[in-house]
């Protein structure tokens, strides 16, 4: 629950029917019906889903760029080496998934990047 342990404990023994008036309560819809309810920290923290953007090349794990093999404006074919990306002691070859033209390369050699970073973009 969003309250901390102490307040939660203090509140629980006797709950009145007007409990839903409390500002902590939120509206939640399940199959068309609206419920007044508390939520959990984990539920609040969840990452919202986004439709994948095909023209963005993202890191799926944090790591270091060892080598960049393309630059903006390059025409690339499937299987072409784009860069070498080291993560968890493994040097991964990042290969081109489909033909296109590189619009931007957002990393330099030796750069450390977090998970979900847009490494390169297609036109």
């Amino acid at each position, binding site marked *: *629950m969003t309250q901390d*342990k102490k307040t939660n404990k203090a509140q*629980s*023994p*006797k*709950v009145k*029917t007007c*409990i*839903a008036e409390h500002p902590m*309560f939120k509206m*939640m*819809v*399940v*199959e*068309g*019906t*609206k*419920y*007044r*309810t*508390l*939520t*959990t*920290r*984990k*539920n609040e*923290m*969840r*990452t*919202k*889903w986004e439709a994948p953007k095909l023209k963005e090349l993202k890191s799926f*794990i*944090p*790591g270091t760029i060892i080598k960049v093999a393309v630059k903006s404006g390059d025409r690339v074919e499937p299987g072409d080496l784009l860069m070498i990306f080291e993560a*968890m002691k493994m040097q991964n070859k990042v290969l081109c998934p489909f033909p296109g033209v590189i619009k931007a390369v957002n990393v330099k050699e030796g750069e*450390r990047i*977090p*998970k979900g970073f847009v490494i390169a973009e297609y036109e």
Partner: protein
Amino acid sequence: MPLKRKILELKKRKEEILQGGGEKAIAKQQAMGKLTARERVVALLDEDSFNEYDLFVEHEARDFGMESKILHGDGVIIGTGTIYGAPVAIFAQDFTVAGGSLGLMHARKITKIMDYALKMRIPLIGINDSGGARIQEGVNSLAGYGEIFFRNTLASGVIPQISVILGPCAGGAVYSPALTDFVFTVDNISKMFITGPEVIKTVLGEEISMEELGGARVHAEITGNAHFFAESEMECFEQIKKLITYIPWNNTRKARRFEPKDPKPEFNIDDIVPGDPKQPYDVRDVIRSIADDSDFFEVQEYWASNIVIGFGRINGDTVGFVANQALVLAGVLDVDSSDKAARFIRYCNAFSIPITTLVDLPGYLPGVDQEHAGVIRHGAKMLYAYSEATVPKISVILRKAYGGGYIAMNSRHLRADFVFAWPGAEIAVMGPEGAANIIFRKEIMESEDPDKMRRLKVKEYKEKFANPYVAAAKGYIDTVIEPSETRKLIIHALDVSVNKVVDTPWKKHGIPPF
């Protein structure tokens, strides 16, 4: 040498070993707000009941200068004792000796007491406070962990296994607690993770404190790895002692019987659940209005709190409660709550504890994150656990029981022994709003005032289906009862289930959707 002098020598040897890691290390332990391993064992067990074994064990490491080092008891205490008279086997890692690090002999001591607990069919309690593997002992440390995990698995479902995290428990060490039945944690003291903040920082560049990564609160609220959360070690020991009173010594025994007591009058079962199915309330108060002395011992209170699990007693005997919590996330089932309830049901079944289920849920939590997190696979665990359980299974439908949620919450169809419903119960394929929108879609769309039409049709559906009598007419519920009759009927149901026999087809084991 006369015997007297030999006794003196024994005393001297013991005294020295009982110093653990010495004054300096003990002062350091105290500065961290922690008790020493011996203090913990004494505080947890009945007075003067602890008998220690393997006090004189010495390590065998011969590399990296270890051969000249003396590690008292090799950093772990093992022995047996009692809690409220119930025998238990216990080990406690001693952080003052080489950081409680696990070497070959340290592991041998632990596996020895585990073997003993399993042979004698008594509960095992492990107090974890260790820096991890003793690097100087290399692969022997890994072997030690493996031997412990194997025994945890072997003993699972045979004897109760309790893990108490009173310090760091990192890397491979975390898997022993994860394999045990109940994990106890203490705020600011317990720390559990596979890879610590240091590694995460160097490898991944993410910065996080130990507490935020794997502190007691995180495991009690976010990951669900911890079953109990306490603010001090003493509170934690009280929780362990209380748990021991509810559970049997092993899977062939019944839990200890207590003197039956009526629920406290301040928990009036007629006043707790609001009539409007959209209004929240605390389902734990319903449990308190049913249980002996209104005593409910909740398990995993802060994680997936949209379902409530825990122990209580009815007419003197231990019962496991599973209840949808309308207060949190409207009481829906989701990935975490299904995991939480399913494991608890299996625990109760393994240790012959009857299960009482209180049903009031709108269904499964909608959302992309839920679907992508595998709510199908996780939700199936509930079906599996209830279907598989052969202990007496009683359901009370308090209010809503819609759709898949109705089936999952110990329905007749999963072989519940008794299904009672309160008069306000609504057993239907889905909530009235959703159902009306589908069944009367055409009428609503073609109407001049769709909103009015929708309200009308929702009302019509409610009157026809939002009650317990449609399901009662098919025998899916056994009887419709007044709330005030609930306790009496549960007592009766438990009484007539004493000799329950269930035939299940022979199998090595099933394949639950892990």
